[in-house]
């Protein structure tokens, strides 16, 4: 099993760009999205961010869509809840709900666009390094880095286990599925801890003394791109707050 977002981020055209540049754009837009009124802020952000994602970072539309639909379930449940009213006469359409839900829909879409721009161009480890620089405690950053590495090893193991169970009809019915999943996790947990123990040995052999020092190669910031990004953020802020 692979995580396609990670895979894409690792191979992204923007992979080498400094995290700060990418974060300024994506998180800046994200903050605008939740701060500005949905109209006309959200559509502006969607157009800008999606445009950059598809045209400049060259994320394939199909890949983008596949991940953009993931939160749809949440949007549907929570949105529908707000659309309807439970009153004396049972279920009825909430009169004021429509515009609120419409605005919410737009803002959530803008949020997803920003999140995906960051996620599809920046590997998690780069983001962790960035967070470390702005004050994430060293221990937590190191644990997260190891976590990232272990996640892929565990996913491979878990997916092999799942295949093995399915081959022996472990997914026959719902009850059996639950039992199989339980057995899988119970088998995975000690193996995870084993794996951690062996990694500890492997790193000790390389002189590990409890701190992870690695040499990072970073590209210099591009003043040009920073200027453009700031201009873009500024104009969205202006349009979003003036015309609402």
């Amino acid at each position, binding site marked *: 099993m692979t995580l396609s977002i990670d895979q894409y981020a690792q191979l992204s055209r923007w992979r080498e760009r400094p995290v700060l540049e990418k974060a300024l754009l994506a*998180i800046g837009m994200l903050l605008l999205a939740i701060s500005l009124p949905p109209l006309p802020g959200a559509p502006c952000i969607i157009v800008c961010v999606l445009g950059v994602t598809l045209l400049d970072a060259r994320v394939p539309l199909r890949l983008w869509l596949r991940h953009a639909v993931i939160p749809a379930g949440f949007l549907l449940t929570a949105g529908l809840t707000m659309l309807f009213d439970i009153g004396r006469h049972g279920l009825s359409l909430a009169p004021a709900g429509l515009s609120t839900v419409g605005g919410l829909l737009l803002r959530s879409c803008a949020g997803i666009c920003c999140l995906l721009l960051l996620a599809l161009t920046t590997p998690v480890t780069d983001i962790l390094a960035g967070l470390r620089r702005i004050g994430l405690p060293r221990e937590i950053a190191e644990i997260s880095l190891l976590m990232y590495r272990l996640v892929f090893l565990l996913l491979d193991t878990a997916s092999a286990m799942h295949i093995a169970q399915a081959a022996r009809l472990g997914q026959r019915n719902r009850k059996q599925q639950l039992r199989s999943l339980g057995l899988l996790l*119970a088998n995975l947990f000690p193996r995870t801890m084993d794996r951690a123990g062996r990694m500890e040995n492997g790193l000790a052999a390389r002189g590990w003394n409890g701190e992870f020092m690695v040499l990072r190669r970073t590209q210099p910031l591009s003043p040009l791109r920073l200027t453009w990004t700031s201009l873009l953020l500024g104009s969205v802020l202006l349009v979003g707050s003036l015309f609402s």
Partner: protein
Amino acid sequence: MHIMEGYLPAKHCLAWYTVSAPFFAAGVWRIRKILAERPQARMNLAAAGAFAFVLSALKMPSVTGSCSHPTGTGFGAVVFGPAVMAVLGAMVLLFQALLLAHGGLTTLGANLFSMAIVGPWVSYGLWKLCQRLGWSVAVSMFLAAALGDLATYVTTSIQLALAYPDPVGGFMTAAIKFGGIFALTQVPLAIAEGMLTVVVMDALAGK
């Protein structure tokens, strides 16, 4: 089910970040203390976090479709303690947002509060209570996991109701509406998670 990116207004995002921060800080303090004694614990904590993430990436058989996955809250709280879970939970939520597009960055504070603070503390409290009452491990574990799960969803409902109170009935009506929808969809999941946790603990005991 986490609150998605962009769903909460800025004020609420900030408020939930602020509420969660002390718990996170306490967790960091606790982890630092553990690491000062045993530097190697780094690896075990990372393994626990990775396990929790993988857990959340697996689909759980349920009635409601693809959004359901085990939260592992109860299991984690009982095995690692609720303080540590606040930090591991934050990392898992960050990974979920960035690797799975599940949850979000601005809503991370709110999700952290429901999933990695309320859930684990409820689970942990119930577990301790049941143990004191002398109930069996299986029953205690089931209750801890299932109700911890449910507490997470109740918290999420309250968070949504606070952000989007009903135009007519206000916060309470909205809370009941969100709570009702989530209860309907999540109670079976909470029960499934409770049973799953019992199977896991049982099989682990056999190892």
